[in-house]
């Protein structure tokens, strides 16, 4: 609850038009893209600049009001669901690209800039910002930084973290700090930039970011390899990497995923094969040609039934767009779609694909798998129905076992979606008690009153580790 006194103070900062505590106004910020999570905030506030953010934070700290910063609400771990009420902070006014610095190859932006708008703006100048989460048409840079988003190009180019050079952050006490800079080298103190990337809004509010750019690759090629055997497809992935080729993109889609994606996109994807790999390489044309040829050979050696190269950029783009729609397209199948992003070392990808199918069978649930196979980041997805409690329980058990298996293979519970509320009960499986304690110490030091996105990352209780009996 926000007291009337606090409300008046907040309104005096942003103006009445930027403070909304109507029932409908709050309802539409009570969710993100995570299924089964919904919770009303007490108000929604839209600051116009960093100074206003700082003043808002001070009021919230004084009155112990939770703050949930939110971009476009596309995240998949309930990270922006205001589970403890308080205010949702939105960045609809703070959405400008401030500068594209062609000498230092950087771009400086406000958090509300939509990822794809940024990508297009820098590409117009022949520069390249590689992180491309599937939601990039909608997601904001602020959200990407807070979740450390990945994407299709992560295999070769890394994730959001690898492109954040400097941040402006409002801390829980209202202090405004600047971390990093347009510097290739900088060892002045702790690397706070990296600390804030992926912190899910639990340590501070990011109000500005300077991102690294690289020159646009000269050429790009795209191909599809078709398989009648899931594990053969997965084996090809490890083998490509083992042959010292790092493609831009190496995506995996199984048959059920192909079927729904084709139903939506209607671009002629094969639906009569068990799996496909979507492979891309970019760079100087002779390198691209050589790598594509070699990768096609590897796929064929691993029993790919056919390998098809996209004939035009339009065709390639249609394939990428189709892949990005996979999760939402799977939502066609059943009312509720639960997806995870358990990640393993690349070398273990074939094992993981096999295990996922065995677990699905064991719990009698349908699991469709797609994902960034090249970086070991799979998205096992379960179409189910939240109203069927019995099935949901089996789904949860299946996913628990997938998490446990991923960790056993040297992997993690989440590769790119974040911990949020959804994976908080499993975080200790990955970090251990001591790891959690170290993170909590940081959290307590920076946010002693626990107003910054409370209830996220750290769970009230940890799930009992499932014992795998096999």
């Amino acid at each position, binding site marked *: 609850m926000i007291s009337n006194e606090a409300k008046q103070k907040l309104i005096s900062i942003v103006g009445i038009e930027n403070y909304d505590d109507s029932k409908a106004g709050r*309802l*539409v910020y009570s969710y993100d893209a995570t299924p089964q999570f919904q919770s009303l905030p007490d108000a929604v506030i839209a600051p116009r600049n960093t100074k206003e953010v700082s003043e808002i934070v001070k009021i919230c700290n004084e009155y112990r009001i939770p703050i949930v910063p939110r971009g476009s609400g596309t995240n998949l771990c309930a990270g922006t669901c205001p589970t403890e009420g308080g205010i949702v902070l939105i960045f609809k006014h703070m959405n400008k690209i401030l500068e594209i610095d062609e000498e230092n190859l950087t771009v400086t932006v406000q958090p509300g800039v939509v990822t794809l708008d940024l990508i297009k703006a820098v590409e117009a100048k022949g520069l390249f910002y590689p992180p491309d989460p599937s939601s990039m048409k*909608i997601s904001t840079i602020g959200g990407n930084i807070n979740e450390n988003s990945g994407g299709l190009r992560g295999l070769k180019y890394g994730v959001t973290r690898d492109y954040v050079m400097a941040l402006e952050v409002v801390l829980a006490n209202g202090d405004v700090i600047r971390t990093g800079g347009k510097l290739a080298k900088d060892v002045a103190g702790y690397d706070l930039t990296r600390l804030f990337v992926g912190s899910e809004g639990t340590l501070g509010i990011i109000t500005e970011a300077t991102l690294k750019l690289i020159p646009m690759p000269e050429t790009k090629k795209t191909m599809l390899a078709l398989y009648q055997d899931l594990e053969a497809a997965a084996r090809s992935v490890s083998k490509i990497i083992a042959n010292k080729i790092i493609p831009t993109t190496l995506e995996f889609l199984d048959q059920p995923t192909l079927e729904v994606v084709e139903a939506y996109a209607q671009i002629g994807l094969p639906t009569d094969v068990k799996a496909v790999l979507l492979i891309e390489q970019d760079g100087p044309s002779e390198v691209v040609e050589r790598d594509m040829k070699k990768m096609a050979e590897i796929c064929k050696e691993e029993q790919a039934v056919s390998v098809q190269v996209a004939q035009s950029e339009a065709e390639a783009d249609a394939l990428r767009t189709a892949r990005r729609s996979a999760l939402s397209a799977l939502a066609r199948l059943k009312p509720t779609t639960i997806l995870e992003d358990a990640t393993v070392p690349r070398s273990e990808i074939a094992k993981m694909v096999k295990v996922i199918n065995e677990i699905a069978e064991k719990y009698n649930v349908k699991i469709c798998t797609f994902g960034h196979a090249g970086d070991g980041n799979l998205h096992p997805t379960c179409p189910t129905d939240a109203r069927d409690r019995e099935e949901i329980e089996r789904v949860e058990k299946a996913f628990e076992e997938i998490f446990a298996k991923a960790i056993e293979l040297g992997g993690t519970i989440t590769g790119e979606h974040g911990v949020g509320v959804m994976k908080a009960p499993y975080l200790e499986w990955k970090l251990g008690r001591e790891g959690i304690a170290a993170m909590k110490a940081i959290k307590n030091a920076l946010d002693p009153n626990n107003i910054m996105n409370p209830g996220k990352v750290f769970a009230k209780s940890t799930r009992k580790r499932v014992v795998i009996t096999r």
Partner: protein
Amino acid sequence: MTTTKERNVIQQQFKERMNEDELMNCMRCGFCLPTCPTYIESGFQEAHSPRGRIALMKAVVDGLIEPDEDVERTLNMCLGCRACEPVCPSGVNYGHLLEEARDIIQKNKKHSLPVRLLRKAVFEELFPHPHRMRTITGLISFYQRSGLQRVVRNTGLLNLLPAQLKEMEKILPKVPTLKEMKHRPNHLPAQGKTKRRVAFFSGCLMDTMFMETNDATMKLLQLAGCEIVIPPQQTCCGALHGHSGEKNQAKELAKRNIEAFEGLNVDYIITNAGGCGAFLIEYDHLLKDDPDWAARAKAFTEKIKDISAILVELDFHKKGLKLPSQVVTYQDSCHLRNVMKTASAPRILLQSIEGIEFREMKEADRCCGSAGIYNIVEPEMSMQILDYKMEQVKETKATTIVTANPGCLLQMKLGIEREGLSDRVRAVHIVELLLEAADASGFTADQQ
């Protein structure tokens, strides 16, 4: 204003009538956000996005919130352009959800007496009755031709109207006289070889205010080799009713139309207004719960085709059409594109005309803000959307804006008027331009 009692009834009916599976099918990924004109123009307010509106509808069903003024406001603010549907990977039928929700609210809302009378007059007493439509149009014709229009404009009487209606008065098409509207054909032969037998859906507004467009459409069909049947029993498609929460009346009109077009033994039923066509093509959804009509509705909808689609099917774009040199751009009709899935045919036809330079405007697929009667009931948002649209039009330097729906056509004319471009830019329905081209190039129908 809704009373507490009304809200309770509305809430109850949301629970009973809203399709829960469809509501749950929205997984809130937000892929719809960048395509929603009201989300963008409202400065990225989630409440004015499809995802937000679906969440509100579901919250009313779940009992999380009441259907209060704010909920009604966001539903009213929606253009119903349905641009969110083709981009939705989950395939949520947003338009159906919106229509159902609006119908529930309208049914249970006590309007003030003037509003009630106006709704009744328009929805029940005017559109479904062809002769009344003709009479009204005849009056407008008299107004335009008798010199009255000149007098009214000169005396400044128009200043008494709200700004919006005043602008509307300027862009009214030159309408036909009563006499001209009386003798409409029931049957027309193909010119040359008969390649298809089609029925023509003439519509209510299209056959009165936009009679010239209908005439051009039929002329093109004849040239393309179609024998045309125009059943006189047909009536208004019911789109305005359906979109305004008058679903029962829409169903009655649908039944009358299905009856009128049954047993004609035609290949297609041709429409020339995206708004009407999109509503006709969903009669099967409208009547899905009516066992006597569901199958008949399905048979009807399978025959619906837009004029541009049949012209492309009959290779009209390969006939060497010509026009004097001009730059042309095309504004999609949202319902033609998003519901009838006809986006390439109009472009193929336009690009085939020798002499014109076709320049695609940025975001041609974004709504122009006309949206049925939206520009009258939500003038502020409508004009904001139109101003953005006109920026894109100006960018192309087009002198001819082509549309495929009467609402869009009037809105484009309004945009031209507002930008002070009326001496340089014109807006036309695609059939008018095609007929112009056919005439200019000495088109002859295929004899073989």
